[in-house]
């Protein structure tokens, strides 16, 4: 959510006509600006903010800020942008002006106000709330996102994208991943037939028999979380593909599985705790500073060796799916890779290997690393563009369901 100062200023300037028209209108305008810079704000939040103002002395700027912030912002990432918009929007208004407006509001003669501006803001607010509820409905019902990316975008290789395209693709990725995840979770609930006895309900039902158990009540098997571990090669050109994959997998994350993310090149780092939010690219920027050897060559065998010793014990169970993304070029000892793949395979449920090189038509896994790993893989897929991610998503659906 990076917005330039110019964008913020111009958004604020659009609403400069609102001054002197009452606090609620100012708040509505403020809310609209926040929406324009990417913070989701609803009408009810703005109204609550307005109600909250009655409880504080709004001439105190910091209290005023705290009131608005606690009502309008619901996540930590929104805090810095909120502060910038707040400072920009309210800086020219002395808060005494605002408090005078509040008092005047109750006794103002409405006919003196410029009718056009008043109506248009209120209309806009109404339209907003109607739009919001429609949007929410839409998001529920559509299966594929209706953003205006064309077919060619779906096929474009990740490594060829510029910043704008990357951003668009990231949004698309999240949207698709969410759809897929929701579908899986719904399907699971419907499909799971009762095959386990529910002791509580059984007793409940049998009270009428005076305590003899005659009717059995069955229940759905409690869905246990599958765990997915991403092992991402982030050396050189693999970096770009890994980023998109991480974005995708985090979009998929829901009640069905927990995701651990581990990056490796010449050494290995667990970065799950660093990637908490949906803004993956920002998090990855932060990480590349702290992960050693981010763009050296790759030592896959060595990295798996470290993984098996440091993390596998606590993270990998027979239900775990391991997803490795790498081009297979191992600069280190290939025998080590062979041994470690065998160890890993014994512990986990399935291993999926994603290789962007698979997309090129003449590719055959000729490099030694890939040949050595191949026998241990349950699935070998490409991951070079949006279409391939969609395929991956569908595959995971079947795997987890």
């Amino acid at each position, binding site marked *: 959510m990076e917005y330039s100062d110019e964008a913020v200023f111009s958004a604020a300037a659009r609403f400069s006509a609102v001054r002197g028209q009452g606090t609620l209108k100012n708040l509505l305008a403020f809310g609209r600006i926040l929406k324009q810079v990417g913070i*989701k704000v*609803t009408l*009810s*939040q703005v109204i*609550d903010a307005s*109600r*909250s103002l009655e*409880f*504080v002395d709004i001439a105190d700027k*910091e*209290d005023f*800020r*705290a*009131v608005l*912030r*606690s*009502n309008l*912002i*619901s*996540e*930590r990432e929104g*805090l810095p942008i909120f502060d910038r918009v707040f400072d920009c929007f309210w800086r020219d208004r002395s808060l005494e002006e605002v408090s005078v407006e509040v008092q005047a509001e109750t006794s103002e003669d409405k006919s003196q106000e410029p009718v056009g501006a008043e109506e248009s803001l209120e209309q806009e607010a109404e339209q907003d709330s109607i739009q919001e509820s429609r949007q929410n409905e839409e998001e529920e019902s559509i299966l594929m996102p209706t953003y205006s990316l064309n077919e060619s975008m779906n096929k474009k290789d990740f490594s060829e994208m510029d910043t704008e395209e990357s951003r668009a693709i990231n949004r698309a990725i999240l949207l698709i991943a969410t759809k897929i995840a929701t579908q899986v979770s719904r399907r699971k609930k419907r499909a799971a037939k009762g095959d386990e006895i529910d002791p*509580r309900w059984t*007793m*409940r039902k049998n*009270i009428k028999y*005076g*305590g003899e158990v005659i009717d059995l009540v069955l229940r759905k098997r*409690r869905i246990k*979380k599958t765990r997915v571990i991403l092992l991402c090669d982030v050396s050189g050109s693999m970096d770009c593909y890994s980023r998109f994959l991480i974005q995708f997998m985090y979009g998929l*994350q*829901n*009640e069905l599985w927990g995701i651990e993310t581990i990056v490796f090149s010449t050494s290995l780092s*667990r970065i799950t*705790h660093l990637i*908490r*939010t*949906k803004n993956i690219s920002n998090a990855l920027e932060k990480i590349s500073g*702290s992960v050693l050897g981010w763009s050296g060559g790759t030592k896959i065998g060595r990295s798996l060796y470290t993984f098996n010793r*440091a993390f596998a014990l606590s993270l990998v169970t027979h239900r775990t799916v391991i997803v490795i993304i790498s081009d297979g070029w191992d600069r280190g000892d290939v025998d080590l890779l062979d041994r470690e793949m065998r160890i890993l395979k014994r512990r986990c449920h399935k291993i999926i290997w994603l290789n962007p090189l698979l997309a090129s038509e003449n590719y055959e896994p000729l490099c030694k690393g890939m040949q050595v790993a191949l026998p241990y893989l349950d699935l070998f897929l490409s991951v070079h563009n949006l279409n391939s991610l969609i395929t991956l998503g569908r595959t995971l659906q079947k795997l987890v369901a």
Partner: protein
Amino acid sequence: MNRKGLTIEKIQQALLKEKYICDRSLATVVYLSISMGKPLLLEGEAGVGKTEIAKVLSEVMKTRLIRFQCYEGLDANTALYEWNYPKQMLRIKLEEVRRGDREAVETEIFSEEYLIKRPLLEAIQSDGSTPPVLLIDEIDRADMEFEAFLLEILSDFQITIPEIGTIRAKLRPYVILTSNRTREIHDALKRRCLYHWIDYPTFEKEYEIIMTRFPQVRALLAKQICAFMQRVRQMNFYKRPGVAETLDWVSALITLNREELNEGILGETMGCVFKYREDLNHLQEELAGKRLDLDQMMKESPKLQA
């Protein structure tokens, strides 16, 4: 403390009396939450005082604290109520033995006496002159379905138990939700609440916290600890230590009669601050590689000179 006549300053002072250092923006949000009857969602790293403030608030408001801990797999029954089936069964059996009135028993076993009340029901049924503080801890550990259920409860504060009827809250509890941000809370629930992010404290704030909780500690030691914590939180540890760890550490150092910080003492007591083997190893590496240098830190930090 009465709800009327409450101000932001009074809350801050009352919390301070209970040894909780609270900055004005947090006090403002707490004040709003109480005055408006809107739940408060506190997010932040582990160990920064989210759960603590609910406990302290209940002391300040002189009311009961009902604590509800969330976990994975939590469902509505665990939160609300359950019938005491074994007790009901026994009652029925007893009646059979006596050859008594079956029908009367059936009514009886679905009365409040046979109801196991769980925290949310307790919060709704609570009577007393002041509403209780309902702490819903670590909501991020529960799943989305539980959130939807919670949203309903927080809107109406009423529950319908089919055999008994609808129970409405006479006094709406003060609701505080906490989250460690291990996953995103659903928008609908977030918007229902006032939001506040509690960050790690500044050097000054942490120093104040230490001196308030442990007035007997040497000022220099407290400052050294604060400098260390500030530095460590910027480094790449798996689990960064929070204020809870700082206070544990101070307590340990006092017990061991240590008056200042050096590498030896650090090594002895590191278990108070870092609880993961990876982190302990990482710390040793950083100390050995001089990327974390205690002496240098002490010399260079301007705050320690003051």
